[in-house]
């Protein structure tokens, strides 16, 4: 380098010019993997609570489901000759969400099959990350629920780790490996399932809950349900963390919860014998998991605030309809898939206003400055 002048090009070691990049020549530093990591962090408290509540079989199922998703992802990418994208964390997250929506003591084959369905059918056949129309975890859950209704509705009564009744690690392997469900498991109904069954027998909901098993509803989460259902308040905390850290916006969760709560409030006020209360709705099933973690999936939800409100409210309302009048006790997964299908339509009609244009796309009329020179 001469002291007076630097000449020549900035070149790489082998003398080749670096490839020219378009602007901007700066980046905010956020990566897809970071986003996924934050979501997993938000899920961790509720998941750990579920692990504690349901013990080793639940941990086994979680590991199998997540493992199946990772394997399926790698398998598909190898088949397509693509480089591995396991590092972005999206397959791991899909497995995680699916595991949270399964009965905690479901046998291993449920998790294995579910993981493969989620990744292969739900995601990779569409072209991989970002291309799928439907939420992969919900595709798998619905496929499992429709195909194996018995295995998918065996809700075990909580047997916390280290409690006397809880199976040890070795026993848990037997429980996880066996099919059908292990006879040791004291199964029970979840709140939504129990009230639906009793209602169909003509028992009013307050009586059904009063006469039902003790673990139907509990603010602290000591109740039957899926991993993601019991720790509802921890799930809410995780969701609020996602909101605070800017990973998700408030529109979808608020609209989902409003979509469930508003009709539930009205229904319960009109006929308490027929309809569950808003609180029971919001803290049961996948309401909070769905509102904060499933419906907010970037790929399968609309982008604009208006679109997100429509989408979220649709999910909430459909969930309430299915729970109240449908054949299945829980409707979140179906509602999410239905609204996923509407996402392209919602996106088409909900667009932001472009600067200098009206909503319909025509240019604004010039508004000359007034005498005060504007605001």
């Amino acid at each position: 380098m001469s002291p007076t002048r630097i000449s020549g090009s900035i070149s790489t070691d082998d003398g080749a010019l670096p490839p020219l990049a378009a602007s901007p020549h700066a980046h905010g530093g956020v990566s897809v993997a970071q986003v996924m990591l934050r979501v997993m962090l938000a899920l961790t408290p509720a998941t750990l609570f579920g692990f504690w509540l349901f013990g080793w079989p639940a941990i086994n199922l979680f590991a199998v489901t997540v493992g199946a998703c990772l394997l399926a992802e790698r398998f598909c990418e190898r088949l397509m000759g693509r480089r591995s994208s396991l590092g972005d964390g999206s397959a791991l997250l899909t497995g995680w969400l699916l595991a949270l929506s399964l009965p905690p003591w479901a046998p291993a084959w449920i998790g294995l099959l579910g993981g493969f369905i989620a990744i292969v059918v739900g995601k990779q056949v569409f072209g991989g990350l970002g291309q799928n129309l439907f939420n992969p975890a919900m595709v798998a859950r619905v496929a499992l629920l429709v195909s194996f209704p018995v295995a998918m509705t065996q809700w075990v009564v909580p047997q916390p780790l280290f409690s006397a009744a809880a199976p040890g690690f070795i026993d848990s392997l037997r429980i996880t490996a066996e099919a059908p469900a292990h006879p040791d498991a004291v199964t029970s109904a979840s709140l939504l399932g129990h009230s639906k069954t009793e209602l169909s027998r003509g028992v009013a909901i307050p009586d059904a809950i009063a006469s039902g098993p003790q673990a139907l509803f509990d603010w602290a989460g000591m109740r039957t349900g899926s991993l993601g259902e019991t720790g509802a308040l921890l799930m809410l905390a995780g969701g609020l963390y996602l909101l605070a850290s800017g990973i998700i916006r408030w529109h979808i969760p608020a609209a989902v919860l409003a979509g469930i709560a508003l009709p539930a409030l009205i229904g319960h006020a009109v006929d308490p014998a027929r309809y569950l209360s808003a609180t029971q709705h919001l803290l049961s099933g996948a309401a909070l998991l769905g509102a904060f973690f499933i419906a907010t999936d970037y790929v399968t939800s609309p982008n604009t605030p208006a679109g997100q409100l429509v989408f979220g409210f649709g999910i909430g309302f459909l969930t309430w309809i299915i729970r109240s009048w449908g054949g299945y006790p829980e409707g979140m997964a179906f509602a999410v898939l239905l609204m996923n299908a509407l996402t392209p339509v919602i996106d088409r009609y909900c667009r932001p206003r472009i600067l200098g244009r009206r909503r319909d796309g025509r240019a604004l009329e010039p508004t000359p400055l007034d005498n005060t020179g504007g605001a």
Partner: protein
Amino acid sequence: MGILDRFLRTARFSGGVHPDDHKRPAADAPLRVMPPPARLYVPLVQHIGSPARAVVAVGDHVRKGQRIGEPQGAVSAAIHAPTSGRVIAIGDIVAPHPSGLPVRGITIESDGRDEWCELEACDDPFALDPAEIGRRVARAGVVGLGGAAFPSAVKLSGGLGARVELLIINASECEPFLSCDDRLMRDRAAEAVDGIAIMLHATGAREARIGIEDNKPEAIAVMRAAVAGHARIRVEVIPTRYPMGSEKHLILVLTGREVPAEGRPSDIGVVVHNVGTAVAVRNAVRFGRPLVSRLVTVNGACVREPGNVEVPIGTLAGEVLAFCGGLRVDHGGPARLLLGGPMTGMQVPTLEVPVIKGTGGILVLDAAEVGEGDGGPCIRCGDCMRACPVGLLPLEIAARVRVGEVDKAAGFGLADCIACGCCAYVCPSRIPLVQYFHHAKGELAARTRGTQRNETIRTLTRAKAERLEREERDKAEALARRAAASLAAAAAAKQSAPVTEKVAEDANEESGVCA
């Protein structure tokens, strides 16, 4: 500025980003003036519009400030010798552009004396006719120094047709790394305000507002002091947010008015000039001094002595860097050489590109500053949509461009994109969105040109057919007339011959017009 006021202003435009500004310590380093190097490479096009035409020949001796390029057409700018010396070549020089393709320019070998030519000074610019100010600014080759390099005289002297109510001085300098406007205001506030007063006089606007982002407290203080005696000039402190310096956004924040899409600020009675341009206008009008140098921010982790330098136009980037102590090669060495800021500036392949009138910065960034990383597919997170200050859906536009559906991309408002780069800055998948949009805009422009060409060919073909037809008809008519005339001549053979000649001449003349 009160909290409420601040909130209202911030709320006026949605989107935008807050990149690390990296402006200090370069902004705080004292201004340095670089002497002219041995050779200067002066491109004939440094502005928006038609290139200038060289008016000197190889071997000519020129003095500093002497006009060497004549503007051509309505939108063009004159080019002047940045120092005194000899013209040693008129031909191709490397364009300050990513392509590194040649551009026509004049190479001057300095004689080391840096002698000005005779300049036409003016003691009282406010006594001049506004049109005359425009002419003087045009003669000085002043262009917008904010980066777009639009010939300033066109915007100053009512060339836009509409009445100007408000003059906005863009001193927001929202691009990270750049601080030449900040430095200019700190060191030459009085000159800038004098220039703004001259511009007020030239445009006929009632008042001027100087928009400065709140990350430049020193500049705000000195500018406030400098405008103290001017009732019609105000300093407005605006929130720091990129792209605050975008013309339409600055107007929105300062007036609350939106410039209509496809329109110009003058549509709502506003004209926007950069603060550096104000100083150039002052120099042009008061001293007749053409624009032959400018402040350039030399910055980036790879520059040894970052700071702001007054550089003669035509100096090679490598020489400016050498003046700033050269490049550091530690921490991975230079990753990217840029002209302009990191958000909208362009990467150039070599250091042998000249500084031109629109060059606000020479940046040599390392890998960490560029933030290089692996990309991936779009996950539709919508961050680009939230970052877009124009209200576009970059993810949807990019998805269309990706599969070649440029028309559909245009349907999503591609033409309204200002290429600010916010979308790509926030994209977690690091999709080069701006590159997609440039590509699609180019494609659309090429298509429009193609359509225009076809249209022109069709019009010309039709005109030719009509002309041929007309000629045939005229010829036939002329023949018939001639035949009739000769008949008449034969019939009137006994009468005077000159009349017959007159008829024949008329016929010839008629066909001659149509030929």
